[in-house]
């Protein structure tokens, strides 16, 4: 192992036992969760991650039961176990639950627990954001899953195609789907922000970008994908809900809309989503394979290529879900090519795993059984994926059980098997006990056999012509035996899941505590003793290797004795280190938030807006939205941007770090930037909608139809003025010129209000009626989006004024105004693009 000369070394002498005990007591005070009912105010990543994971597993079992109901119905021809309408609800909820309430949150849940441990961080930078995300997820998930018990669940398929889900299904089911999932997507984006900043800024010192665990690379890619994949769906859901609730005809050809736009927006989300599920699961494999092969991963750089390359290419595949919509052949060809190309990076990582196993000596274990079984299943799914990527084959297989078989091979092999493997692998880190090897082996063979018996015949069922989503079929078409086999297989698979579930929940009191690092892994998450202490890592180590537990001498001893960074919590508060992006140089000692119920209140209030909105109870919905704003402002006011008592802090090993950082070095600035990237992507999706309509209609935008150019141009000019004045305010604050700061922000607020009003007056005064035609509707949406962002900008300006008045912001402690100025850059860009589109584009056509 070669390291840089002059690297800091752990303290050469063992600290006095009394000092160690005192440090441990203080760390325990800071990190131990509250007791009793207050436990639920905990925000630490480990606890939130465990709740998250447990909830996700319950939703998996729920989705599985729905699958069994479907298989019972399809076991024999002309069955009447489920009525057609019930069957529609069951398959819609099955798909939706598995995608939105199991697969994506499982990634977030597992990452929230283990990412900080793999990086040697005590916590992620925004623990309350994780907790808020969890509560949003739980609330939205219960709302959605519960609807089926009231016969009110969505029933238009998990991808909600209009016009089926608009004109033909006026009941509440689709509203529950659209608003419930929009709410849950808030949780997903919150988790993405947290995880990206975790990987980039919270690594143990010395963990250079070429030394980070592969899991972190995958999480970085998958979280970044969430930022660009979810917003198109949020934008699409907004449009579809506006059509359903208010009759704005975005997808209705009678008003000039087009249902194909929904398909574009949905699959712009839906295809990357498959990889958002797959990449973090294969990341777990990348952590387990070296442990059981007893050698470092072969082809680290190639796996990084694989993760990053797949992340990008997966955004060029969405049209392969739309091969039968009548798009020009050349368009199909482009997306068919991209769909074939993505097989290259996907395959590369699998070869790297095989090479690693070949280079080492694989030890037998339950996690490896599930890993290898999962890879075998996934490869079969990948191969049928290459088949359906060929447009001419897809035309035959589209909407048949062949596709059902394909997607289950990909997702069960690529996600569920690796996740179960990870359960067996990581379980000792949760409560210090191992799961049973015997039960695990039984579960594996039940699941592997059951899965193949259930899904292999479906390829043939599909090729013989059985369509998806039909609630029954007549006898004698060649489907009977195949369907019965699938049903038998489904129950064997379910029995395997039952065994895993029992192994997880069975009482383990008499079972001995596992040895430390039971699999003899080389990565940091295996540092904790058994059972783990609440602080995560006893002292934050200096990293010199990709596998520090294997390579760094006396590593565990030095960590345990507190010879590295932050061995103490002298202020009895929770702290972790912030480091630089490339070389993980320590930059800040960050105090992270402790337990609070504010995250739960914020989620309940925001949930109220979405849930009341579903029932069109507008007054309570608006009150909930106002309450959410109030709670979030209270949360920010009391827990963020706090001015620490000491400007710098000795973190050990002779390093002293600042405790307050603002601007691009701060994690808060990164959080705003990343959130706004997602927000801006949703806006771009709406703009895409505008130009999509332009390609459809010769008279789009209609000649002479509003909003004219005077009001929009005036609005944009005023908003740009507001932006400039906020930047002036930031500068005035930095120079401690308080009167100028207050006047600049007051003027910015006034200009923003006037700009918003001017933007509204454009379509208003020209009489654009959004219910009449799609041009008016999309113009109103773009204008409303911009005005809403200006309104948030106003709230932010006022917040900064209040912070400075209260003495919580100053020239040196300027986190808030730095972040608000960053936000205003996006408002300015949004305003310019909106006006260029709605007022400028009609002039040039």
């Amino acid at each position: 192992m070669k390291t840089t000369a002059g690297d800091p070394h752990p303290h050469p002498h063992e600290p006095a036992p009394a000092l160690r005990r005192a440090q441990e007591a203080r760390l325990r005070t800071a990190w131990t969760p509250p007791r009793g009912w207050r436990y639920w105010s905990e925000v630490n990543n480990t606890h939130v991650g465990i709740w998250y994971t447990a909830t996700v597993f319950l939703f998996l079992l729920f989705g599985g039961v729905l699958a069994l109901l479907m298989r019972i119905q399809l076991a024999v021809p002309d069955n009447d176990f489920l009525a057609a309408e019930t069957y529609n609800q069951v398959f819609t909820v099955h798909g939706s639950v598995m995608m939105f309430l199991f697969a994506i949150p499982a990634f977030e849940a597992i990452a929230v627990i283990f990412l900080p441990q793999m990086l040697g961080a005590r916590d992620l930078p925004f623990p309350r954001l994780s907790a808020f995300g969890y509560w949003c997820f739980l609330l939205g998930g219960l709302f959605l899953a519960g609807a089926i018990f009231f016969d009110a669940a969505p029933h238009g398929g998990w991808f909600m195609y209009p016009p089926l889900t608009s004109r033909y299904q006026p009941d509440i089911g689709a509203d529950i789907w659209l608003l419930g999932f929009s709410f849950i997507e808030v949780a997903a984006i919150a988790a993405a922000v947290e995880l990206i900043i975790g990987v980039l800024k919270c690594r143990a010192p010395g963990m250079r970008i070429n030394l980070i665990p592969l899991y972190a690379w995958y999480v970085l890619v998958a979280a970044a994908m969430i930022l660009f994949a979810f917003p198109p769906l949020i934008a699409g859901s907004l449009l579809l809900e506006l059509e359903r609730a208010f009759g704005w005809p975005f997808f209705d050809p009678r008003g000039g809309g087009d249902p194909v736009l929904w398909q574009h927006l949905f699959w712009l989300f839906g295809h990357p989503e498959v990889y958002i599920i797959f990449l973090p699961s294969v990341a777990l494999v990348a952590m387990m394979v070296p442990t059981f092969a007893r050698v470092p991963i072969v082809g680290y750089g190639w796996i990084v290529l694989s993760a990053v390359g797949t992340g990008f290419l997966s955004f060029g595949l969405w049209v392969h879900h739309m091969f039968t919509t009548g798009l020009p052949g050349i368009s199909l060809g482009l997306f068919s090519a991209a769909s074939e190309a993505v097989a290259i990076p996907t395959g590369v990582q699998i070869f790297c795993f095989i090479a690693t196993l070949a280079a080492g000596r694989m030890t037998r274990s339950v996690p490896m059984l599930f890993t290898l079984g999962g890879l075998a299943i996934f490869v079969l799914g990948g191969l049928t994926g290459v088949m359906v990527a060929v447009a001419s084959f897809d035309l035959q297989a589209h909407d048949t059980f062949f596709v059902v078989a394909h997607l289950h091979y990909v997702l069960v092999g690529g996600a569920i098997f690796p996740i179960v493997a990870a359960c067996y692998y990581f379980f000792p880190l949760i409560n210090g006990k191992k799961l049973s090897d015997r039960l695990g082996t039984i579960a594996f063979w039940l699941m592997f056999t059951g899965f193949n018996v259930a899904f292999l015949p479906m390829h043939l069922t599909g090729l013989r012509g059985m369509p998806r989503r039909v609630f029954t079929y007549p006898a004698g078409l060649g489907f009977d035996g195949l369907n019965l086999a699938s049903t038998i297989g489904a129950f064997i698979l379910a029995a395997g899941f039952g065994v895993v579930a029992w192994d997880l929940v069975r009482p383990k009191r008499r079972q001995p505590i596992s040895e430390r690092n039971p699999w003899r892994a080389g990565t940091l998450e295996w540092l904790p003793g058994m059972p783990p202490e609440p602080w995560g890592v006893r002292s934050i180590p200096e990293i010199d290797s990709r596998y520090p537990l294997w390579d760094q001498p006396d590593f565990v001893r030095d960590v345990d004795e507190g010879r590295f960074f932050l061995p103490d919590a002298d202020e009895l508060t929770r702290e972790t280190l912030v480091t630089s992006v490339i070389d993980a140089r320590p930059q800040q000692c960050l105090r992270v938030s402790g337990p609070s119920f504010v995250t739960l209140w914020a989620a309940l209030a925001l949930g109220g807006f979405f849930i009341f909105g579903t029932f069109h109870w507008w007054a309570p919905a608006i009150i909930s939205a106002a309450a959410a704003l109030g709670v979030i402002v209270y949360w920010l006011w009391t827990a963020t941007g706090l001015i620490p008592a000491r400007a710098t802090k000795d973190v050990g090993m002779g390093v002293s770090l600042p405790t307050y950082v603002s601007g691009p070095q701060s994690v808060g600035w990164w959080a705003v930037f990343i959130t706004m990237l997602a927000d801006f992507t949703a806006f771009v999706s709406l703009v895409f909608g505008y130009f999509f309509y332009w390609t459809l209609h010769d008279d789009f935008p209609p000649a002479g139809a509003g909003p004219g150019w005077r009001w929009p141009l005036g609005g944009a000019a005023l908003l740009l003025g507001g932006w400039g004045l906020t930047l002036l305010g930031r500068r005035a604050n930095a120079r401690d010129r308080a009167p100028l700061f207050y006047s600049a922000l007051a003027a910015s607020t006034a200009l923003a209000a006037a700009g918003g009003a001017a933007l509204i007056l454009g379509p208003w005064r020209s009489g654009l009626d959004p219910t009449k035609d799609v041009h008016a509707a999309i113009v109103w949406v773009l204008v409303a989006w911009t005005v809403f962002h200006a309104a948030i900008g106003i709230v932010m300006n006022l917040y900064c004024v209040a912070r400075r008045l209260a003495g919580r912001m100053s020239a040196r402690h300027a986190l808030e105004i730095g972040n608000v100025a960053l936000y205003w850059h996006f408002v300015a860009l949004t305003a310019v693009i909106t006006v260029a589109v709605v007022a400028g584009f009609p002039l040039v056509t």
Partner: protein
Amino acid sequence: MNAPHPSHPLHERHERLWRLAISPVIWGAHLMASYATAAVWCARHTRDGSLGPVRWAIAAYTVAALAGIAWNGLGGLRRHRRGTESPPHDFDTPGDRHGFLGYATVLLAGLSAVAVLFAALVIVFFKDCR
């Protein structure tokens, strides 16, 4: 962890993580430009379903994209070959970190170039909008 002097070319402040993404972004731009050109032409301009200038446009995009990817990939190769460090670049040194980022850039450029060529094949196989 001990950093070279900030003026040293291997100091982390000269390193840009997003350089990794340049080639895949070029691939994305090529795909979107080709798609948009074909979609707008076929939806609004063609009268008889012929592709007209679309194939030439995609050919031009392809040359431009490959040139951009080659530039990014060669830059990565230069960084990868700098000094004496060689793959797997798993040492805790600024040289290995630098070489690793260069190496990953080269690999991503290679993948992007292949993906661009895959997409460009449409101008070989398609003669009209259907």
